[in-house]
Structures are given as structure tokens and as C-alpha cells.
């Protein structure tokens, strides 16, 4: 499915962001990429769809080599790789619907996208996706009117609108509260399972990673130092990835954080049931935070 072969990236400043990363991701597999800041997680993800140009190695998607492509070919491949961003990266001044439809940009000619005259099939798909992520009524709102969790749902819908064969997900929960983070991760997981989509998720929160991914890859200073199922991720491995730290204490603190958020939601009485059922509780949570 996706294969990286000795991928390397060296920035002009001389920093080696990636030093020969090789790995394979199979159909339907959800891979969590963990590692300290500056380990090259973000670079790795962006090298796959070549938003960042790798300086060495090769990327294969379905045995098609991507690193030598350019222009129209590259865009044709990019449209099959959905990407979900840290801080959502929605076009804030466009409506939710326009943002979702922008997932079709690689498919439609310029005049269609310019006049917003998308093929009916694309519009149908967009409405269905908005319903799937629970934002059907918000289609004509501007993206900057939504709360964080809602925006990330739009980001997910935009990526799916591309009919992707692969999802690249960059810190999807970086600016969300613990509760919403879990909901977003659960949504991503469900969607990947529904479509047996492979996904590479860049994630800084080890607990979340353990909970929602099939396989964890630990990256340190541009090199893979761990590759295995979440169950094998013990303190020794964490120390190998992140350096020495009191992991037990950290995990307890993180768990307490998550509980705090749920307590806060509970304190809001009537909302808590709906929140627990996962029915767009972000607004309330955002109000609490």
C-alpha cells in the first residue's frame, strides 16, 4: 500500500530532519507516529504527499513511485491522499460546504471550482460526509464560526471528500480539550475501519495513541527507534524515544487531566448525557474551557 524506502530530508539550514526512514503500511492499518518535537514527524508526513520535498529515498503508493513526479501527475496523486491538519487549516472565510467541496479541487477543472458549480455527485458526497461527521445543519456557516472540534470534523470531511486511498493526519488533537480529542480520534478510527483506509497519524499524546492506533512508530532525531503494536510500548521504549522521564507519573497526570474534563462536563448537569452520547458536545466543552 504505502511504502517508504530510505526516505531522507535535509533542510537548507543543514538540519537532518529524516535520516533514511523505511517502512510499509498495509491497507486499513492505522499507524501512530510518536516522538519528541523536532524528531521529524511533521516532515515525514509532508514528505509523503511532497508538501515538503524529500532530499533522498523513495515513496511508493500502490507501487507507484511519487518522488519523481511533478506538475499534473503529482496533483493527481495528491488528490488520492487525504490530509488532516493540526489547527484544522480550514479556509476560514469560506463556508463549511466550500471547505468540504475543496476536497474535489484536484478532480474538477478550474472554472467549476471558481464558479462553485461542482458535479452533483460531489455535492451529494459532501452532504453525506457532513452528516457522517454530525455537521449537516452547519453547511452554510462560515468555518470561523465553528468550535475547535467542529472545525476538525470539517477537516476530516474535506479529506474524505477527496476519495482518499490514504489519510495523513498531522496532530489532529493538538488544540482540542481531552474529551473532544477522544471523540475526534474515535471518529477517525471508525471512518478508517468503515473504508479500510490506511492512515498515518502524527500524535504527541502517547495515551491517545495507545488507545486508538494499531501500530506505533517511534521517531527520534529523524530515525525510527521503535515499530510495533501499542502493547509493546513500555517505559523502556518510551525512554528510548523521548529520553529519560518518570513515565508512570506522567501517565497518571494525563489520566487525571482527562478525568477532570469529564468531571467538568458532568458539572454541567443536563448536557452530560448528550455529551456522553457523543452528540456534538464541543460547543459546551469549548464554553467550559
Amino acid at each position: 500500500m504505502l511504502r517508504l524506502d530510505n526516505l531522507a530530508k535535509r533542510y537548507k539550514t543543514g538540519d537532518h530532519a529524516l535520516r533514511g526512514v523505511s517502512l510499509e503500511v498495509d491497507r486499513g492499518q492505522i499507524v501512530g507516529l510518536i516522538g519528541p518535537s523536532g524528531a521529524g514527524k511533521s516532515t515525514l508526513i509532508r514528505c509523503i504527499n511532497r508538501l515538503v520535498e524529500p532530499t533522498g529515498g523513495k515513496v511508493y503508493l500502490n507501487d507507484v513511485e511519487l518522488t519523481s513526479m511533478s506538475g499534473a501527475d503529482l496533483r493527481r496523486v495528491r488528490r488520492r491522499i487525504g490530509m488532516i491538519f493540526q489547527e484544522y487549516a480550514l479556509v476560514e472565510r469560506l463556508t463549511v460546504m466550500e471547505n468540504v467541496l475543496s476536497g474535489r479541487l484536484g478532480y474538477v477543472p478550474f472554472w467549476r471550482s471558481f464558479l462553485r458549480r461542482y458535479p452533483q455527485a460531489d455535492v451529494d458526497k459532501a452532504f453525506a460526509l457532513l452528516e457522517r461527521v454530525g455537521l449537516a445543519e452547519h453547511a452554510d456557516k462560515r468555518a470561523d464560526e465553528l468550535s475547535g472540534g467542529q472545525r476538525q470534523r470539517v477537516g476530516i470531511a474535506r479529506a474524505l471528500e477527496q476519495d482518499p486511498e490514504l489519510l495523513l493526519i498531522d496532530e489532529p488533537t493538538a488544540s482540542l480539550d481531552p474529551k473532544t480529542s477522544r471523540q475526534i480520534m474515535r471518529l477517525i478510527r471508525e471512518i478508517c475501519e468503515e473504508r479500510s483506509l490506511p492512515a498515518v497519524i502524527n500524535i504527541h499524546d502517547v495515551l491517545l495513541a495507545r488507545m486508538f492506533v494499531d501500530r506505533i512508530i517511534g521517531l527520534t532525531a529523524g530515525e525510527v527507534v521503535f515499530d510495533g503494536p501499542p502493547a509493546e510500548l513500555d517505559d523502556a521504549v518510551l525512554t528510548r524515544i523521548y529520553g529519560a522521564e518518570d513515565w508512570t507519573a506522567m501517565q497518571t497526570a494525563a489520566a487525571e487531566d482527562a478525568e477532570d474534563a469529564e468531571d467538568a462536563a458532568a458539572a454541567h448537569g443536563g448536557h452530560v448525557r448528550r455529551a456522553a452520547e457523543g452528540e456534538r458536545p464541543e460547543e459546551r466543552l469549548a464554553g467550559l474551557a
Partner: protein
Amino acid sequence: MSTAAAGRRWRRPPVLIQSRRTRWLVYGGLLIYLALAISTVEVNWLRVYEGLDRGWRFAQGFLAPDFVSRWKDISQGLAESLTMTVTSTVVGVLLAVPIGIGAARNVAPMPIYLFCRAIIALSRTFQEVIVAIFFVAMFGFGPFAGFLTLAFATIGFMAKLLAEDIEDIDEAQAEAVRATGASFPQLINYGIQPQVMPRLIGLSLYRLDINFRESAVIGIVGAGGIGATLNTAIDRYEYDSAGAILLLIILIVMAAEYSSSHVRGWVQ
């Protein structure tokens, strides 16, 4: 789930005006205005065609400027422009500071506020050139009238922006200074000056730049400076001298912008 939505139309909601009726009215009105406006522009195309030749000569003059033959006039005009710029900016800014403080609603009492706002409005309403015509009529030809014009315009410009800055300050800081029992001048000095000073300096440099550009214009109505020289050169169709003057103006403006960005970085 997906079948429920099938076939549903989507159109981008209108960006600005929601009601379709008013939208058509506004856009239609604008179109009609444009058609009317363009149709009432009378152009003597023959004259324009003849002018293309002169335009070409100007372009040549701009590329091969002649600094030498009118250097005496140019250098004197430039000296007048530059001195006018410096003196008027200094005097204008010095006068604008108290007026700007007086025009800030959060520090000045009502009567003073209205008085200072009136001065600002008076100074900002009329084009520098119109003001210059009056000052020339009163004070006679020459750079002194130009100096007064630019200083007058500087007051309105600087005082308005300073007043807005003071109104936008972080009130908590001023509050804290007031709580120490500070007097009014102390409040200005400790609570407000530090917050507005960097921008005040930046704006003064910007105004210096504007004043130089304006000083090249008011010479056309007799208020001294490089404008008079330029006017003469263009009247005599000496496009190479005119090109030289324009190039000098552009160079000085570029130098001013370049150095002011440095000063601004240094102040902050």
C-alpha cells in the same frame, strides 16, 4: 444516511448582501453608474495619439535623465524641499502631541476633547495644495508658506493617530499608575507614553516621508521646494530634467523608507 442527501442542490450563499432584490439593485446601480461615468468622459483621441510621442520622450528622459543642465535649480529646489520637510515635521509633531492627548477621550475632559477634535478636523479636511494656496496668499511666495502648510497638515495627521492610539491603550496599566497617586503629567509619562511611544516615532518617520513627497507638490502653487523646478521643466517639455527630478524624489523616498524601517526596529 447518504441516500437521504442525494440530489440535494448546493449553491454558495451570497457573500455580502443577503436579499436577492437589493443585491441586484446595488450591482445594477453600480453598473449603470459606471456606464454613465465612462460615457461622459470626453477624450480627444487625436490629441492623445499625438501625446504618445511625448510620452515616449518622457520615458527616454526617465531612462537617460539630465541632472546637469538645470543642476542649480534642482539643487536649490531640493534643499528647500528637504529643509521644509524637516522643520515642518518637527514643529508639526511637537504641536500634535498635546493636541493628540487632548483629543483622546479617555484622558481629556469633554470641552478640551471637542476643541482638539475640531482642530484635527479642520486640518484634515482640505488638501495640502488648497491650504498652500491660502498660505501663499497670506505669507507670500516661498518655502515659509510651504513650511506652514506641511506643519498644519502634520498636526491633523499625527494628532488623530496619536489620539486613537491613546484610546486603544491597555487601561489596566494606566489604572495602576493612577492608583499610585500619580498626577496627570505623571500618568501621561508613566501610564501612556511607554505604550504609545514606539508607534509615535514610527508615525513621525512616516509623516517625514509624506511631507517630503508633499513638498514636491506644493511648489506648483508657489510654496517653494522642488515642485516649482519640476513644474518649469515640464512646462518647457524638458523631460530629461523632469525625469532627473522624479528619479531624485523616488531615490530619496526609498532611502527614507529604508532608514525608517531600521530606526523603527531599533526603537522597539
